[in-house]
């Protein structure tokens, strides 16, 4: 197809433009390829169908494309495909004459690259197409972007794609904390010359270094050739940090063919863009279109653009929509479909195509109410409020800067501030909900208080009078039920929450292998029904692990139902602001699980999840559990190593982490759980066994002295971050590794010497002290063997 296009190009300019005009304008929407950060809501349905200001999130993207004159939209779905298909059928008439089609993924997709390869296989794209993520909200005038792409193509026929960026300064509230990229752009042609992904960002949102934002910034090295080339041609380069990646590209067909040829490209930015830019063989160029920096003839003001990437941006975006930044995609335009277009809304009438519209009206202070809202006379409705139809608000209740879905019920004297309530949420009298997201059908008992940053998954029930800690996430799904896609990673200690959460998952997950099946039914049955059967009872009956059910009972109160999912990291929580993380971490520590970790980031930093680590942990957890042969495991890890361009040390570190997580799981299974701690004895026993079984795996990756040193470093990091229990048994881990020839004594001695130099009171020093018996033994053994040698 690409060849055919080129032929067309040969035949003069006029014919060429005619050809292009005949082409149907097509778009590909990637509905949630990676939506980990929006858990636990995404357990219940795809991210694309989450409500944003009471309209499905996907609707904003579709609206943007259809208003921009796209004639055919392909929505690529890999999670919740049926739901997305049903939704598209429901809203199809609204988007007439644009045709909406769904491409269902045939295999699980973890990256945009995989998704686009599937799109290529579907063989539906005929020419240049618009690529958009399913979570973008913008009132960008799409024809301007397409015109920019066409102009770029006219100038330079090797243009591969035109990427759209918005000028939003780094650290702006709408930008996710971990999103950042440095772009070097030729200012005359708009050509992108260099792309450097900086997931850890430049500006840290801490108070301490706020006045010197660049003081702790990581260095960026730009290739010298850039400057050489620029000075040769007299081009003016611009180094941009303030460009927010919209993920909206106008692509040529070659994008798809390139992705198919390079099957290891996962992310469009970190993999494809950097490879294309650095490759001289491909000879392709990429152009940057900066929104708002447009010439005459268009609207005077810069368009709005933002994406929902985590809970914080979700809440900020809701507020922006209510503040009309996304005009005309505002509630009172009644342009977007209601959430009733998405199947499974609590209390929704059957979808028949006529009730999809909304009837919002605006009043002062950006307060919007739909028809059929019942307000008590003394209810106070503040600014930036959206009230869905059928909602009722009790006497003296106060609602400010919040979104209420349809059929919500707010009790008397209840306060709802800065929150997003999805459809069918019931809040009892005198409760307080601040800075929280409550998914469909959540029930909050009278007098309960939901702290800032809490997210309650669908159907969670909070008992009366309960106070929920800030930034806790609850779901009605027991860990076990989610095992296939989640528990593996969580068990390995690298879920997206903090370490505490991961531990709880691990325990709750692994312990009750046998007893859990009943328990699932109990919990699932109880939650949506409004909590007739409390999780505590269910847990009691079925023998839920002491820890998990203690959590549920303690946190959600009598009559509550739901399971703790974890804690939201502050930077991504819906109660935003303040430092990015609670414990100050090392600057080179990468970020919590997100889809676009940088492929070229050096360092074997474990603990956070970039894609490599997450994937590796996922795979390893499964393979270790199945007792796969070491050779097979090595094969898998190596595949990832090459895919993400990682070092041997990274593989060793990740193997070690999986191994230890597996050890912990085994110990829990063998020894049971007592007050959240597994028996030390059981732990040591399984440690011995585990290392015995999989030492061969580590030996593959640890060959040189440098590798050994890095392995110990990784082990130390694990102690501090992902697997804190390791600190208690550090000595035994070292010993086991020594016993199985992973670490030779020189390496251990070298480490001990280095640790001696550590300041007193530091964790490292403590570990050194803990290892003293082992080191003494080691020294003796050495001298013994030395003696023996001498004797011989």
């Amino acid at each position, binding site marked *: 197809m690409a060849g055919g296009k080129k032929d067309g190009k040969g035949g003069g300019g006029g014919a060429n433009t005619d050809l292009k005009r005949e082409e149907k304008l097509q778009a590909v929407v990637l509905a949630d390829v990676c939506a980990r950060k929006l858990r636990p809501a995404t357990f219940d349905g795809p991210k694309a169908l989450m409500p944003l200001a009471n309209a499905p999130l996907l609707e904003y993207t579709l609206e943007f494309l259809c208003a921009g004159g796209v004639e055919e939209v392909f929505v690529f779905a890999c999670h919740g495909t049926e739901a997305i298909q049903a939704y598209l059928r429901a809203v199809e008439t609204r988007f*007439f004459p644009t045709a909406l089609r769904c491409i269902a993924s045939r295999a699980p997709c973890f990256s945009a690259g995989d998704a686009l390869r599937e799109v290529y296989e579907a063989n539906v794209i005929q020419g240049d197409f618009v690529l958009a993520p399913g979570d973008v909200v913008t009132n960008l005038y799409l024809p301007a972007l397409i015109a920019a792409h066409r102009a770029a193509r006219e100038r330079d026929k090797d243009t591969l794609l035109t990427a759209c960026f918005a000028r939003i*300064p780094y650290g702006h509230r709408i930008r996710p904390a971990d999103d950042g990229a440095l772009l070097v752009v030729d200012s005359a042609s708009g050509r992108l010359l260099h792309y450097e992904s900086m997931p850890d960002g430049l500006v840290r949102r801490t108070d301490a270094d706020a*006045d010197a934002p660049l003081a702790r910034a990581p260095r960026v090295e730009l290739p010298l050739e850039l400057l050489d080339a620029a000075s040769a041609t007299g081009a003016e380069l611009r180094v941009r940090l303030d460009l927010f990646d919209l993920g909206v590209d106008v692509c040529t067909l070659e994008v798809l063919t390139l992705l198919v040829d390079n099957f290891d490209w996962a992310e469009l930015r970190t993999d494809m863009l950097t490879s294309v830019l650095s490759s001289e063989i491909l000879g392709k160029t990429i152009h940057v279109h900066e929104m708002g920096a447009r010439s005459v003839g268009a609207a005077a*003001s810069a368009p709005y653009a933002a994406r929902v990437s985590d809970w914080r941006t979700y809440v900020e975006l809701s507020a922006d929509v209510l503040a*009309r930044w996304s005009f005309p995609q505002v509630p009172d335009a009644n342009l977007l479909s209601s959430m009733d277009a998405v199947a499974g809304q609590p209390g929704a009438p059957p979808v028949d195509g006529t009730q999809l519209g909304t009837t919002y009206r605006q009043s002062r202070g950006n307060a919007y109410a739909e028809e059929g809202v019942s307000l008590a006379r003394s209810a*106070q409705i503040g*600014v930036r409020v959206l009230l869905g139809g059928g909602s009722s608000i009790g006497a003296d209740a106060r609602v*400010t800067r919040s979104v209420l879905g349809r059929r919500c019920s707010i009790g008397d004297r209840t306060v709802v501030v800065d929150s997003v309530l999805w459809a069918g949420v019931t809040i009892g009298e005198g409760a307080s909900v601040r800075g929280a997201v409550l998914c469909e059908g959540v029930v909050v008992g009278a007098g309960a208080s939901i702290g800032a940053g809490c997210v309650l998954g669908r159907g969670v029930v909070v008992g009366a009078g309960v106070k929920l800690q800030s930034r806790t996430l609850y779901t009605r799904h027991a860990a076990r039920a989610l095992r296939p896609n989640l528990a593996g990673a969580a068990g390995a200690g690298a879920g997206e929450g903090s370490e505490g959460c991961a531990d709880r998952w691990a325990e709750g997950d692994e312990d009750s292998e046998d007893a859990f099946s009943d328990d699932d039914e109990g919990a699932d049955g109880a939650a949506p029904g409004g909590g007739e059967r409390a999780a505590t009872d269910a847990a009691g009956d079925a023998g839920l692990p002491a820890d998990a059910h203690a959590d549920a009972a303690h946190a959600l109160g009598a009559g509550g139902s739901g399971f703790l999912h974890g804690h939201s990291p502050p930077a991504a929580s819906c*109660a935003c602001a*303040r430092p990015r993380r609670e414990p100050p971490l090392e600057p080179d520590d990468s970020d919590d699980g997100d889809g676009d970790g940088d492929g070229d980031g050096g360092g074997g930093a474990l603990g956070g999840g970039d894609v490599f680590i997450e994937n590796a942990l996922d795979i390893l957890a499964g393979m270790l559990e199945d007792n796969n042969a070491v050779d097979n495991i090595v094969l898998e890890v190596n595949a990832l190593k090459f895919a993400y361009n990682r070092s041997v040390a990274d593989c060793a570190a990740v193997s070690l982490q999986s191994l230890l997580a597996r050890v912990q799981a085994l110990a829990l299974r063998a020894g049971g759980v007592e007050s959240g701690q597994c028996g030390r004895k059981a732990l040591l026993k399984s440690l011995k066994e585990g290392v015995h079984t999989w030492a061969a795996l580590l030996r593959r990756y640890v060959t040189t002295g440098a590798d050994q040193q890095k392995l110990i470093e990784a082990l130390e990091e694990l102690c501090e971050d992902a697997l804190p229990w390791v600190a208690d048994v550090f000595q035994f881990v070292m010993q086991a590794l020594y016993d199985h020839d992973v670490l030779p004594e020189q390496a251990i001695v070298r480490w001990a010497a280095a640790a001696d130099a550590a300041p007193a009171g530091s964790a490292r020093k403590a570990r050194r002290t803990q290892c003293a018996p082992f080191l003494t033994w080691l020294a003796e053994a050495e001298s013994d063997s030395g003696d023996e040698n001498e004797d011989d």
Partner: protein
Amino acid sequence: MASDAFEREVSVFTTKLKRRQLSGFHQTASRTAELMRSVVVHTRWQTPAKLIERIQRVGAELVRAAPQELCIGNIVRRVLHIVREEVDGLVRELERASASSRSDALTTGMPPSAFSTAPSLHNLLAANLHNEALRTPELCSAAVHEIKQPIIDGVNELIDELGSLVHSIAEQAPEHIHAREVILTLGRSRIVEAFLKRVAKTERPFEVIVADTAPSYEGAEVARRLSEAGIQATLITDAAVFALMARINKVIIPTHAVMADGGLLAPAGTLAVALAAQHHSVPFVVCAGIPQLTPIFLTDADDFNLLLAPAPILSYDETAALEVNALCDADGGADGAEGSAAAVVDGPARRAGASSGPAGVPPGIACRQPSGRDDGFATDSPNPAYDYVPPGLISLLITNIGGTHPSYIYRLLTEFYNPLDIHFGPQAAL
């Protein structure tokens, strides 16, 4: 099938209205009239009442899509008026026929004059009887075909009127603008542009001062077009309007709609100009087409207004800094004032720059507090599309049927609309 295609046409139109791809008088009025014509032509109606209901239903749908586009409702009312006129004529004719056939004239009920549209108590009371008459099948079955073509002709006339409206307003221009006059205008409109260009054709020397019309800054484009037409045009900022008003001979402005009291719903900024004109006793002349006359009274300045995106008056980059400053303000004083103290930024928000921020909080960093004390503020920057200008400030209204005064609007309204149609539609959407 035909009705399917029609429904689709309506839905495409309403979607475009909601997306604001179509807005303003010229883009919406004629399209509405065309849709109304296809209602009359394509729908099957057995009785005139059915037709009226159908028009009302489609009309209400269009109005719901863009309630602030008042001319859509006006066109629907005009079409309803045409239908009612024809039906009245028919009723009168039938009554005359029955009166002549039967000697007992008393049984015919209402005298024909009852159906004239002049608003009187008698007419209002008779309206119900009128509706009854429309529903009687024997009256309608034969008559439908008789009135269908006249109705279509009437709607066609309306469409022609819309087409020639700009021209007929512009033709009056030489009567209003004299040699060496200085005219001030604001906002962009085809009508005023044609009006001024028409004067230029007379080769009378005159000067136009164009206000910038922030935040849309349409003034620049207007000034460019006028100077291309050979008119001496000067572009000034909105703030300079008052200072220059003393030199102005006439203010000539377009409007979005003329309300029932003679007041205007005009582009934002018009009220300031009108007040300045009043202060200097400068005639304030409004150009508007008859379809822009709206038989509705504004009860609240927010009615039918439209808040646009804040982007033109406040750069999105700055919102983060504003939150910080608002927080500081809230910390300082309004800590307890929950839900009421919204920091409202109108116009360019430079004053809320970083200078008032607390030390150590860099601009561009949002630090909304997670809970508790943040109840007091939310930065809002409303950007209304229209101003309401009360009738007292308006000297003259130039319509396509001639000049008139706001106090005379009520007469025009009764001439062009039927009082039954002021709130039309099943749920009286307006």
